[in-house]
């Protein structure tokens, strides 16, 4: 508290500094990540081609899974580590669909259709469990994962081939019982969604080159912004600064893409799995729409305060179960997308990757256990994977020793996640302080 009165110019300067500061504070994690990724990229000596190829693949693999975590956060259930169960369900269905010999897009659609009821049942059971362990969802989710792993092994190691008949020498072990450790989806579901055309003998279908895809997306975004500005209520419209920034960004992206096309760079070899991206975009739109429905509103209500929601007559337990069911189904679909892109998976281990990394990506995007948006999910996936692509090479270049590079990468990767989370927490404290003043 200052007792000396301030002059006008001082006040104005302070105001401007405060707004610059608040911008930095608000975006400090993103800014830090951009700087880090840029430095890492420079250090790694990577070509843009390699980087873009990898990030396109990783984005289309993982974005949907990260989106699956949003709904439980909305319903106040924190990070849903039980999506591992959804992934197991997806693997189970994929194994059967592969056994039946379905391939390509039809196979993917069939898998998604079949996995939905299974994941919904698992979601219902998990949700019921969480309702009986309110406040201990995290440890319950963790132990549930181990429990489900046991059931999964029981079914696929002991029952399939024996009690559940399945006769397929590439899937079942030679003893006749138990599924092999690796399932190869080549000539099956692999790229079923990414390159749907290959199934019908046309590789080009729904696979534009990256520059063209960027131009297309930029145009779509611009149109979207215009429509948004025209349709929504005044107070929700974007500000002029935001519009100008968006305009510059989109224009630059288009200009860069045109350059790439003209120069016939390697970038033109990278192809965007358009259908997958459409599915992800559909999920985003769906989530946005969902959050404005009655059920979505109920989830947000329950998420803020279970007691208040209950007094208002909302069936809290039912809403929580619905949230887990939706999350579980989305996770199962997301894992199918993941598997069809990867192409081979380890029967008893692939689902392990799902929980922790998706959660980390979401958190890095700026989400907290209490608040997560689509933007957080997409930004987080992008930043997280950028770092993971750039870091190994950067570590190697920095130390000139592959092993040391790897150790350093893991240190940086985990350290960055830790620092990011710390910065989010710190940011909140800073913001709370500035609100108070």
């Amino acid at each position: 508290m200052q007792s000396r009165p301030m002059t006008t110019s001082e006040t104005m300067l302070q105001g401007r500094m405060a707004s610059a500061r608040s911008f930095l504070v608000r975006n400090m994690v993103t800014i830090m990540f951009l700087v880090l990724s840029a430095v890492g990229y420079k250090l790694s000596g990577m070509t843009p081609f390699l980087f873009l190829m990898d990030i396109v693949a990783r984005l289309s693999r993982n974005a949907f899974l990260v989106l699956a975590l949003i709904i439980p956060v909305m319903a106040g259930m924190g990070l849903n580590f039980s999506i591992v169960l959804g992934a197991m369900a997806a693997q189970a269905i994929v194994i059967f669909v592969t056994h039946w010999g379905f391939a390509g897009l039809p196979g993917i659609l069939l898998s998604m259709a079949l996995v939905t009821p299974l994941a919904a049942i698992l979601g219902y059971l998990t949700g019921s469990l969480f309702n009986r362990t309110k406040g201990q969802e995290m440890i319950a989710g963790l132990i549930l994962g181990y429990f489900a792993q046991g059931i999964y092994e029981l079914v696929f190691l002991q029952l399939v081939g024996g009690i559940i008949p399945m006769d397929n020498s590439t899937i079942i072990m030679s003893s006749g019982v138990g599924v092999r450790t690796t399932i190869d989806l080549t000539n099956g579901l692999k790229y079923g969604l990414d390159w749907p055309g290959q199934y019908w003998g046309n590789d080009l279908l729904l696979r534009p080159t990256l520059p063209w895809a960027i131009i297309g997306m930029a145009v779509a975004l611009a149109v979207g912004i215009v429509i948004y500005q025209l349709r929504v209520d005044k107070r929700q419209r974007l500000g002029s600064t935001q519009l100008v920034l968006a305009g510059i960004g989109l224009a630059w992206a288009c200009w860069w893409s045109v350059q790439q096309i003209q120069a016939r760079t390697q970038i033109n070899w990278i192809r965007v799995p358009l259908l997958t991206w459409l599915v992800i975009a559909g999920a985003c739109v769906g989530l946005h729409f969902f959050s404005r429905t009655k059920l979505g509103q109920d989830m947000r209500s329950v998420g803020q305060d279970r007691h208040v929601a209950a007094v208002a007559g909302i069936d809290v337990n039912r809403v929580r179960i619905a949230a887990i069911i939706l999350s579980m189904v989305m996770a199962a679909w997301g894992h199918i997308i993941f598997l069809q892109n990867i192409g081979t998976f380890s029967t008893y281990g692939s689902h392990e990757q799902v929980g922790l990394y998706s959660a980390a990506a979401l958190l890095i995007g700026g989400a907290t256990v209490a608040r997560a948006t689509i933007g957080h999910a997409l930004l987080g996936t992008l930043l997280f994977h950028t770092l993971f692509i750039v870091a190994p090479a950067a570590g190697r270049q920095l130390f000139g020793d592959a092993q040391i590079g790897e150790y350093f990468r893991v240190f940086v990767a985990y350290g960055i996640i830790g620092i990011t989370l710390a910065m989010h927490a710190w940011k909140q404290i800073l913001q709370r302080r500035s609100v108070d003043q």
Partner: protein
Amino acid sequence: MQDKSFLKDMDLARLIIAAFFILLCVAAIALRLDFAELITSSLARIGMWGVLVLAMLPAIVSGIGPNFGVSLGIVCGLLGGLTALELAYRLEGIVAFSPGMLFFIAMVFSLPFALLVGVGYGWLLNRVKGSEMMIATYVGFSIVSIMKLAWVFLPFKNPEMAWPIGRGVRVQIALANRGMAQLLNNFLAFRIGEVVVPTGLLLTVALAIFLMWLFLRSRTGMAMSTAGSNPRFAEASGITVNRQRIIGTVLSTVLGAVGILIYSQSYGFLQLYEGPMFMPFVAVAAVLIGGASVKKATISHVIIGTVLFLGIQVVAVPVANAFTAEWSSMGEISRKIIQNGVILYALTQAGGE
């Protein structure tokens, strides 16, 4: 630690898990397993983990929640252990250390690291109130990774620890050479029938628990638990909350360092590299299964959790194996299903908030 509060902490969930433990023991006897040996192993395992689980207590009590970053303390302990071994090698021929002396030196060397790291870590956790658990997890992972660099680069010369081919310290370092393996376990160990009681180990754990009990009743201890349970009340009472949280973190880190040395002497090897990565999860699971929450923990939670969780881990596998002797792989599968199923069931019986 009064009997009354001990009983109160044994709520329904705990009773179910305890009943399951007893059932496993009965099954072990019925299946004619070497029950005395199982009890011996259980006692040793409980003793090994006792101090590591205890490390969760000051963390929870001071308000930072279960310390997923106890791996920081663990690497400090390992560093102390390595330093002691290195010292013994360098001074070979000048001073001959007895195993006990060496163990003591390991502890002494790990303490400055643990204190320093604990203060820094506590400082970090004070910046991020409300998100400690998630951050601690990743800080823990991160420190384990950076220590891998240290294991490769630190100038240790003791050939007992060296890789057979290249530079650096090997993944598992045998303590038997210097007589440190089972040092505490064998101290005053005696037999009741076939059961071997690792007296020294259990006494050490009991001593640690007793000291913690005393500490919690000291002025600092009271201030720390006040800061943990209601920070605003604590501030109003003239307690510097951040300082108390740092004290809690330092204590937890130090206990982690001491705990890993006790663990390692019983196991017989120092485990470096990936070894400490997931140890915090076991300790956290144990204290939570003992009935603690992220905000509240007592000494009885630590004891109950350690005995039940680690006891079950020891007995469950052989029992499951014996049950399914004729059915390959079923032992481990049924262990996973039944053990985790029972814990889940117990959690549901707690009924949530």
